[in-house]
């Protein structure tokens, strides 16, 4: 009887542990996904102005007027 109770308790512990494991693991994956999405959105907000890159490059290269 005692042995049977112990076995039942052990199995309940395992079940609870397994549930906890799945929850933590899924939460971690979710957090990584949210963090990645946040980073991508932040980069997207910075824009994709290729003309701006050209202008920035021209300004920097013409600073100091050294090449010529």
């Amino acid at each position, binding site marked *: 009887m005692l042995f049977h109770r112990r076995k039942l308790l052990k199995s309940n512990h*395992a*079940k609870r*542990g*397994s*549930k906890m*494991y*799945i929850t933590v*693991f*899924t939460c*971690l*994956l979710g957090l*990584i*996904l949210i963090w*990645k*999405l946040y980073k*991508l*959105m932040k*980069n*997207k907000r*910075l*824009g*994709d*102005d*290729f*003309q701006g*890159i*050209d202008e*920035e*490059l*021209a300004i*920097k*290269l*013409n600073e100091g*007027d*050294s*090449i*010529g």
Partner: protein
Amino acid sequence: MAKQAVQLTKKKRTQYHFQKLKMCKKCNRYSVLADESCPTCGTEWIGVESLVKTIFKNKLFTEAIWILIFVSLGIVFAPTMKSMYYSLIAGLVFCLSYCLITSIFMKSEYFIQLRKLLRSDFKRIKDGIGFDSNLAKDDAEEGRLASAYEKLREISDFIENDKVKNRSVKLLNHIILRSDMELELETLVPTSYDRDFVEYALEAIKLNRTLMTKKSIAYFIQHRASIVTDFGMETLISVAGTALRMKLYIIEFADFIEEFLEYFPKERLLRLCSIIHSNPEENWGSLGLKTRGLVAAKYNYDPDFKRFVS
């Protein structure tokens, strides 16, 4: 020095200037020239876009490896079979979602990577262009004028200073210009008076009048005193004549045109009259009055001007 007859290649055009940047992986040097391979080591250039794509791919690959390791560890350390299946499904869903959002934001991520590379490699880009400029100098010294000019033409897309413009103009003045050449003028306009530029401009507009744009006309007006001293009044008459190419220029430089009106050849005056006549809604001011007066006095019985004389 006698002028050289040369063949100039067509300039390669790109949507953005940075697309012309390329790198030699062996010499670790950037260049903007049109050559296929590095003049130092002979290795083929890698375009800056391909370079960014490679960096971007490597970054995605590293991220994918980390994700796979994390998901695999999650599966391996699952305490029960049931949780192992759950982890596997969650891992798969996660990987798919990760790939999906990465592909949605691919363009902006590529842009960020490109900007990062150009910012971090700026010093090397500048050194590379400096090296290209020295190659152009060597070509000019050894008499390879076309090659030297083509190099400077590419450099001037990035470096916009009077030194580069003056060097280009000096080379062009030693080349026999032809109408089939892809000549430029507006990009060579310097900030101060340059005799070589005026000499080149006069030669170029003889071959192609469309080269004379607003900026070039404004330059001639700004430095008219020096130009008259060096090249004579005829030069300004010729420039005022080219300003009749477009209605916009006539309006913009009306005073300048008016000054040389009586020196224009018949064909130029005819052009001015036809533009004024076909745009009666425009306020031509004293230019319109003076043109009508001149036509009445000089070409009153000329059949070509008949429709303008009322």
